[in-house]
């Protein structure tokens, strides 16, 4: 029980000193040195990047982990809070799936001895090395939920949101969301109360998107990173149309650069499905038609398929888009459909469109033709196969 390797404590001190020397460490990784060649510290800190030589990992982790667990198990050892916070930091850096360490940190966040900002910084650092750590994302969700709660509580009664609030949430629709540029604005003050000090709501959420993006880059098909992003849209932006459309725009470039990453497509599908549910507010507030977005997506994916033949992920996405459009057009024809009576269009105009452009089977035929003439004739055999499967699917499943 417990490591008798005395180097553990020294390595722990070295790690703590690194964080003391530089509180802006933004990247972390292991250095592939298996044996200490010289009597030098394995903790390397250069230009805000932290590295640890691999020979020391096990020793450090054992020391930190056993110290932490021993403290947890019995109250015989009295350890100062700061020391516990440092021990838990060492543990999660090397083994982020240790929920106990994260939970200990949660306790200190609740008692105030550890700030949320500090813990968000640490978990972001952990993700630079362990981009697929579900526990880390889970911890971030806990922190952000807390942050959102505090923010909402302090902004109740303020005139921050002028849009219609949905179920008591702050409506983000009326706020101009500039989701690209990080802002350096002073923190918002509602009713004379600082919202958790220097933590700015907008900045925090943008940072989170950034963290998700980085994690998605580091590991292909990073389900956890994309789930986090979805969670963020749902909880922090309350699926506002503006956020959804913004995200649609932002991820276009990323998906084009990661054409085989199914998570990227899945995310766009989530965005589009959410937008579908909000068709009305979409057209009212942003003057955008849902169908336009879908058709744009259609064009986008067809373009990608043409540029990069033979990738199944893209064809799956095409199926989604086609299915959505087909269903949507089919609905249009049924009486009492919610799209009747759109503002700005006369009934005759709608009827005309319905007959010509929205006729689902006619449109599906067009799609079929398009596939036959383009993709089915591709030089890539993989592409041909996928195109054929697509056509089969269209005929059997969708068109009844």
């Amino acid at each position, binding site marked *: 029980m417990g490591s008798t*390797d*005395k*180097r553990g404590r*020294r390595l722990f001190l070295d790690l703590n000193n690194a964080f003391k020397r530089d509180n802006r460490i933004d990247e972390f990784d292991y250095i592939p040195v298996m*044996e*200490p060649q*010289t*009597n*030098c*510290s*394995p903790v390397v800190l250069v230009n805000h990047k932290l590295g640890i030589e691999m020979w*020391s990992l096990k020793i450090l982790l054992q020391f930190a982990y056993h110290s932490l667990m021993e403290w947890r198990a019995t*109250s*015989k050892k*009295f350890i100062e809070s700061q020391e516990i916070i440092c021990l838990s930091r060492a543990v999660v850096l090397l083994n982020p799936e240790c929920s106990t360490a994260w939970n200990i940190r949660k306790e200190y966040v609740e008692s105030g001895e550890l700030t949320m900002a500090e813990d968000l910084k640490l978990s972001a650092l952990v993700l630079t090395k362990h981009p697929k750590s579900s526990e880390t994302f889970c911890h971030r969700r806990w922190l952000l939920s807390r942050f959102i709660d505090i923010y909402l509580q302090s902004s109740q009664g303020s005139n921050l949101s002028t849009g219609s609030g949905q179920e008591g949430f702050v409506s983000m629709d009326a706020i101009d969301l500039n989701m690209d540029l990080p802002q350096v604005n002073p923190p918002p003050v509602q009713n004379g109360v600082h919202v958790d000090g220097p933590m700015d709501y907008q900045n925090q959420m943008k940072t989170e998107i950034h963290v998700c993006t980085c994690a998605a880059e580091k590991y292909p098909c990073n389900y956890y990173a994309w789930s986090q992003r979805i969670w963020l849209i749902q909880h922090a932006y309350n699926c506002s149309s503006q956020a959804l459309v913004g995200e649609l725009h932002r991820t276009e470039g990323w998906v084009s650069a990661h054409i085989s990453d199914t998570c990227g497509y899945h995310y766009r599908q989530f965005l589009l499905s959410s937008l579908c549910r909000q068709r009305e507010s979409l057209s009212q507030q942003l003057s955008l038609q849902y169908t336009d977005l879908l058709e744009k997506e259609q064009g986008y994916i067809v373009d990608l398929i043409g540029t990069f033949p033979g990738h199944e992920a893209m064809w799956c996405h095409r199926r989604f888009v086609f299915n959505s459009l087909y269903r949507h057009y089919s609905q249009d024809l049924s009486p009492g459909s919610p799209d009747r009576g759109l503002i700005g269009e006369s009934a005759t105009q709608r009827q005309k469109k319905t007959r010509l452009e929205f006729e689902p089977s006619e449109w599906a035929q067009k799609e079929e033709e398009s596939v036959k003439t383009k993709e089915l004739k591709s030089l890539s055999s993989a592409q041909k196969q996928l195109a054929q499967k697509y056509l089969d699917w269209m005929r059997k499943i969708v068109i009844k």
Partner: protein
Amino acid sequence: VSQISITDDDAQVNRKLPKELLLRIFSFLDVVTLCRCAQVSKYWNLLALDGSNWQRVDLFEFQVDVKASVVENISKRCGGFLKALSLKGCQNITDEALQKFSEKCRNIEVLNLDNCKKLTDATCASLGLHSTKLQQLDLSCCLCITDNALKFISKGCHHLKHINISWCHEVTNDGLEALAQGCLKLEDFICKGCSQITDVGVGHIAVHCKNIRRINLHSCQNITDDGLKLLGEHCHDLAFLCVSSCQRLTDQSLVSIANGCPALKTLEVANCSHLTDNGFQALAKNCHVLERMDLEECLQITDSTLNYLASYCHHLTVLSFSHCELITDEGIRHLGSSVCATEQLQVLELDNCPLITDASLEHLMGCQSLERIELYDCQLITRQGIRRLKNRLPNIRVHAYFAPVTPPASVGGGRQRYCKCCVIL
């Protein structure tokens, strides 16, 4: 207890041992075991809960679980028998509980309230009123304690010998003045991290507490040479002094101590980066009984300091020169050939001294009592150097980044082989 009569039906232990012996046995037991014994039988209940067994109570194991009622019950049960009580880490204890305690347990001599964060001056008021026999009091990390607490203590606890008010930031020189004037028998004064304390406060202690032997002012950043001058002038029996992280101190302080405290055994001046060889020269020449010294991060000291220490201080046992970057093998050579080296020297910390090489390890081969040496980040030290040292000093623990060397095979090479019917004589 005398009302219970022991019959032949009772257990052997109760029949054979007179109650005085049973009581004596119980007096060695800890709180938990005593309570268990109290549940064994009526007789044992009376004996186990007899006040005489509860002279020393340590509730550290229970910490946040200790509530007011626990302290009150113990107070009632132990009454005048309770001499030592530790509530270290019991963060939920309040003033009321301690008030009742001090009223009932008037013979308390040792009281540890370390980290009982909810306590305020009111507790000290109670102690000042009732705990006249108090000798040791630990209030470290009781963040609400102010000067008033010390005034209360000084009024009633005239026998106080040991006080610890570390990390009680609210305390100022006024509190120390009251304390010093009231507790004239004070021997140990531990006051880490009290940033409001200045030389004036230290002066009060120095002037009034003639018996002072241990002073700890770790991280009291406002202390200057003037304060230590006062210590040197008045505290001639001083044996332990810690002024680590009091970064305003200069060599003048060392000169003051050298002049006035020849009995000094332990000196901790870690992080006092203004100290130079000159100060330590003066210190070494006058303080001959120094045993333990912490010079970590005294960046300016050179081999010269080691030379002086080696020449004049023959009882050095624990030395730390971590981060003293100017130290070279030459300094270690002086140390290694000093009087203290062969028998006395037990611990030597040289981590982060980049100029140290294997030659230093050679110089230390004669230190028979050396138990531990720290060499982390001494980048010129090699595995071979360490192995050679361990061969000469098999009991030594060498702390470096290299993996600990496995103990060598038994001296004399492998095992002797013998057949099963024979015996090696």
